């Protein structure tokens, strides 16, 4: 089994990808990956959340 592909999507790989997505297991595997990714992206906006106390502490050094 090869670990990496040279290019993510190639002419050769399209048909195999489509066949795989048509299988129940393939579709489920793909859906699960994308669900995990959606959960992860939902957490990304945490960088815009601040502790109020941290913003009020003076920078004094």
């Amino acid at each position: 089994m090869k670990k990496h592909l040279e290019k993510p999507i190639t002419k050769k790989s399209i048909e195999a990808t489509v066949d795989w997505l048509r299988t129940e297991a393939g579709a489920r595997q793909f859906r699960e990956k994308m669900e995990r990714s959606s959960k992860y992206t939902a957490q990304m906006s945490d960088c815009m959340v601040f502790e109020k106390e941290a913003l009020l502490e003076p920078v004094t050094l």
Partner: protein
Amino acid sequence: MSEAKSFEVCEYTEESFKELLISKSDSSSAIIESKQHYEYLNRYLKSSSVQGKTIVAELRYVDHDFLEDYSYYYVKCFRDLERKCCRLHFFQTSFVEEDLVDFLSGKPSQITKESLNDSYIGFIVIKPLPKTVFGRTCLMHYGEKASEYTRHFPITRKYPVNLFGIELSVQTLAFQEQDRVAAACATSALWSVFQGTGKLFQHAIPSPIEITKSATKHVPIESRVIPSVGLNAHQMAQAIREIGLEPLTVNAITEDLFKAHVYGYMKGKIPLLMGFSLYGDSKEGSEPRGKHAVAIGGYSLTEKNVPSYNGTGFLLKACRVDRIFVHDDQIGPFAKMKIDGKPVATIKNGKNSNKYSLSTSWKWADNVTGELVEGRAVDPLLLAPLYNKIRVPYITIHTRVFHFNEFLSGMNLGQGDTSSTSEIEWDIYLSSVNDFKKAFLEKSGAIDSNLMLHVLTKRMPKYVWVCNATINCGEPYLDLLFDTTGIEQGNLLLRVVEYDDEFSESIRNLLGYKDIAEIQSHLNNCDILKWLNTHNRLGVRIKEGKTAEM
């Protein structure tokens, strides 16, 4: 020294530098030797890439920033304080006072305008104060190599200098030490940041006293404003608003998030202000020593392979940032901070935790053991001063590209690739459209001429988010260009620039399978896939669809 004397010339040595610092300020040998700046600047001037040889002291120099501070505070002191400064110029070539006298008298001299300019390192203004003597400092930074994997200082600019009619210049970002009267560290960091944004966004650069006053105008502190004891994040943000820019505050909760923001904005020439808590590097854990602020002036990239963004399989060029160079007013200009992944045990309000940290140049003696403790920067908070039309934040673009990358790597799963790792490396950064088009034009010859014409003549906003994808260690794959002025919830994609014929054909082929729900559901929810499905490679719409045309 006679009163008429306007300059002095001496060979640069640690001793001569110290003598000048003492004699041209109101300080003492003990104070100068105890200052970290003195040690740091000597190390810099002696380094192999700088090699300072000669100092020219320009006497009774009128410094605009000090004069502003002087007129607001120092002039009203009971004790007489000098209002003129001394400016020390540093050169990489050796010459003596007679050489400069001969040159300025029009006599034959071993120095020329060219030799002075070629060997010019920069200057330091020495303020006539008892302790905080380092005023406006413009020194050239350490060299950048031709390679991409080296130091980058995208926000520096050319400072013209006139020394008795001799035109000199230095490429840098100005630095100065806090005087603890008009400015604490936050004000000094803001002043350096405004040195960068002033030229970029065309605003007046306020003096330290003006920054402190404007920061506290609407958000006052409990005690008196001047002498300044420091600013909080709200006040720093207010100082940015007062000059007509918008502050974007980022809570850099992970190391990769920190790197991504630093790289994404700094490559777009936006200087950043960083606030952080300073902790001692101890295994047992320590209470914070205090909060500090610095201006980020540069970064360096490592060529080594680095882990994916937060271990998600998303390869991001920004994760290669291994050091940042900061104007730390307690250390000096372009002080190195390593992003080395080291966790630090912290104790705050009785709570113990382990947090990622950055190295600093801070050192102090432990109160109990007396041992030297190295300072670590924890809980970094980034403040980006932005032009008001740069509305869409980095994280919005990062999220969209991440999702698209997940789709592409999801397609690999069917090929037996269980690593979930895409071979694509993403370079996400802010750019002016002029800089993007200039760089694109330089690729002329390597890109299809029709595509070149379509991209270069496309109307775009002043600033764009560029997401450049490469495969196989640098081979161009595609660029995604996003609008910075749009509505975050809407379609921000301006266009896709496709460099790979096989990708262009294959992705459109794949999107054409209407019977596969997994493809079609993502097609409806992803601007990038939608664009690829409705446009040809040149960017001409070939199908109907709800994508905005500019």
